[in-house]
């Protein structure tokens, strides 16, 4: 293992946040901390921008392939806009005395630790390191979710810690079993834990042991992805913590989890195709995805808390992506990737709007927030556009990805199209219903500062990108994603 890899350009997006975290832990002033945080997040994105050109042979420590570069870039982008958002969000929280200013040092340090750990998990070549990074991110998030120190926040972070702790423990067991499965093919040492060595040698791994590893990976990382049986931590964590970390960034960690599941899927599929004895991974992933989709779509109707509502919507969309990945084939994988990418951008934008709205109205229940379009036209319009995007209505990009998934379902597994269709329609319907109560109706009383146009700019950037991807579909980006989907099979 060569840690010096981190100093190469591919390691910068990992190094910047971790160094910033150390600096932030030492800077006592929260005003300075907020600016350093924003600057570091921006720097991290700039460093990540070069990743698509660094795709190449794997180093011992880092492995930049197209899939990793894509997700790193996406994560870094969301981290950057969230950093901008956090700057003004924190100021309003301090003014409203919801967060103690002494705790902001911890908040900013954990923000950067979280970002750095996600980048490390995506770019690392070693399964053990990926696992360690996911664990670090979890602990950072647990600490931040509990920050407001209200009874609800402590309860939420406790639940977060216990459920995700079990999940990552199972994932670690899966990592050991995977090592055992790859041992006959690659021999002892670091090789059976490296993605770059594992993937070409997939056919020679022991298939039945691989099955065992797959089960643990799916349940373990599925927990982090918010997939059905172990999704319970997500709504609480999203609802109670400070919005920038708990909601916006926690939305990115499910990408990391799905990324690991995707890698393992291609490992399993290669082994299965070569007659190595592994089961086809598709049906299991598809089942979990469909279960999450249906469960979340119907749960949406009963939510009274806005952040909780959108957390369930995240579970739903994670289910849609997992369903697409389980379906298999380049077209469905492409659709799944597109869906994940666009959903991450959309959800980050929506949570930024909701964070502003909650500060404006001094509460995050549906009864607190109403009539935004009438009283605060700009915020209302932005939020409405975000929700319409999320409901996968044209002209935004999510329509294209969900349409593709439905077409592929009809082609490959027609019977599943019915439950899948019911899921997305019920989910979208709930979203539109809530769009009406949030944005229309009689305005509720304001209890906080109204967001300026500048504060909403990051959301417009997100929505603009989604609109652009939905309408223009620029050839280089499509070619890039098709190449990823092809390599995954």
């Amino acid at each position, binding site marked *: 293992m060569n840690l010096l890899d981190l100093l190469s350009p591919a390691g910068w997006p990992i190094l910047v946040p971790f160094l910033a975290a150390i600096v932030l832990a030492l800077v006592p002033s929260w005003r300075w901390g907020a600016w350093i945080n924003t600057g570091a997040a921006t720097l991290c994105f700039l460093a990540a921008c070069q990743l698509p050109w660094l795709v190449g042979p794997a180093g011992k420590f880092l492995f930049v392939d197209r899939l990793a570069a894509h997700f790193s870039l996406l994560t870094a982008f969301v981290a950057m806009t969230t950093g901008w958002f956090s700057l003004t969000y924190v100021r309003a929280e301090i003014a409203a005395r919801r967060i103690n200013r002494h705790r902001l040092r911890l908040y900013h340090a954990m923000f950067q630790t979280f970002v750095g750990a996600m980048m490390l998990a995506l770019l690392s070549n070693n399964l*053990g390191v990926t696992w360690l990074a996911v664990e670090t991110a979890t602990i950072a998030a647990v600490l931040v979710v509990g920050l407001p120190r209200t*009874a609800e926040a*402590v309860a939420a972070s*406790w639940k977060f810690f216990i459920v995700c702790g079990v999940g990552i423990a199972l994932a670690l067991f899966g990592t050991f079993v995977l090592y055992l499965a790859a*041992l*006959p093919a690659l021999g002892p040492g670091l090789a059976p834990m490296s993605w770059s060595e594992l993937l070409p040698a997939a056919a020679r791994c022991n298939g039945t042991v691989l099955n065992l590893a797959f089960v643990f990976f799916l349940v373990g990382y599925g927990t982090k992805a918010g997939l059905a049986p172990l999704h319970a931590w997500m709504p609480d964590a999203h609802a109670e913590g400070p919005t920038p970390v708990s909601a916006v960034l926690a939305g990115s960690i499910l990408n990391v989890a799905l990324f690991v599941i995707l890698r393992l899927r291609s490992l399993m599929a290669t082994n299965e195709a070569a007659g190595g004895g592994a089961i086809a991974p598709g049906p299991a992933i598809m089942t979990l995805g469909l279960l999450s989709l249906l469960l979340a779509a119907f749960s949406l109707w009963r939510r009274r808390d806005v952040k909780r509502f959108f957390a369930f919507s995240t579970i739903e969309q994670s289910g849609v992506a997992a369903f697409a990945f389980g379906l298999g084939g380049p077209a469905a994988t492409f659709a799944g990737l597109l869906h994940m990418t666009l959903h991450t951008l959309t959800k980050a934008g929506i949570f930024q709007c909701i964070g502003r709205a909650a500060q404006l109205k001094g509460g995050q229940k549906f009864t607190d927030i109403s009539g935004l379009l009438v009283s605060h036209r700009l915020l209302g319009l932005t939020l409405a556009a975000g929700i319409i995007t999320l409901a996968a209505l044209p002209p935004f990009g999510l329509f294209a990805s969900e349409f593709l998934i439905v077409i592929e379902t009809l082609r490959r597994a027609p019977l599943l199209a019915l439950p899948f269709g019911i899921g997305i329609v019920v989910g979208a319907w709930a979203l539109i219903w809530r769009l009406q109560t949030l944005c229309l109706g009689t305005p509720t009383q304001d209890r906080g500062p109204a967001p300026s146009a500048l504060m909403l700019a990051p959301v417009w950037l997100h929505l603009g990108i989604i609109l652009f991807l939905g309408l223009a579909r620029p050839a280089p980006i499509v070619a890039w994603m098709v190449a990823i989907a092809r390599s995954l099979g």
Partner: protein
Amino acid sequence: MPLRIAFGALPYDMAHLLGGAMLVLSFALLYQRRVTAVINIYALQGIVLAVAAAWQGFIQDAPHLYLTALLAFVGKAVVIPVALHRIIRRLEIHREIETALGIFPSMILGVALVVLSILVVLPTTLQAQAQTLTREDLAIALSVVLLGLLMMITRRNALTQVIGFMSLENGLVLAAIGIAGMPLVVELSAAFLVMVAFIVCGVFFFHIRERFDSLDLHHLDQVGETHR
């Protein structure tokens, strides 16, 4: 492999004995009704784990496992139990453990989980070029992991849930040391997790105490039910 590792040979029997002892201690964790006893048994399990790691280091001729053994001993057998005892004394937590599921049904469930893990691990690893010892170690380790999980589910106190979690971690380390040639990174990370988990929880206990004057998670449940 210079040593013959099979039933009847000392390396095999000893490793099995230690793995079996860990499993028995996991069951002991399940039927204890007093918090202090649970902590003591957890410490005992940490000692057995340390010995098992050292033994594996000896028979595999892998010196880095001695480090794992040392970490397990210092962390799990000494530091964590001592700190937990101190927390209990300082917070004056009531000493009885509340269970969500009776002792007898949870023992039955525990036995079922052990059977399950043996039935899952042994047949699937049959064709792997792994030694019998590795396979059986893995089955025992999975049993310890599942029993830890069971303890987390069936206990109401935050403290016992955390001990369940840490006992689950012991199972993970047992799995790691049983696999010959496993890189050091992983053992360190497993040991690391326990430490960090402990710190995180330590922070937690004080906050829960601040809020509710109790480590009983009932309060948290009520918060959850009335809210939303």
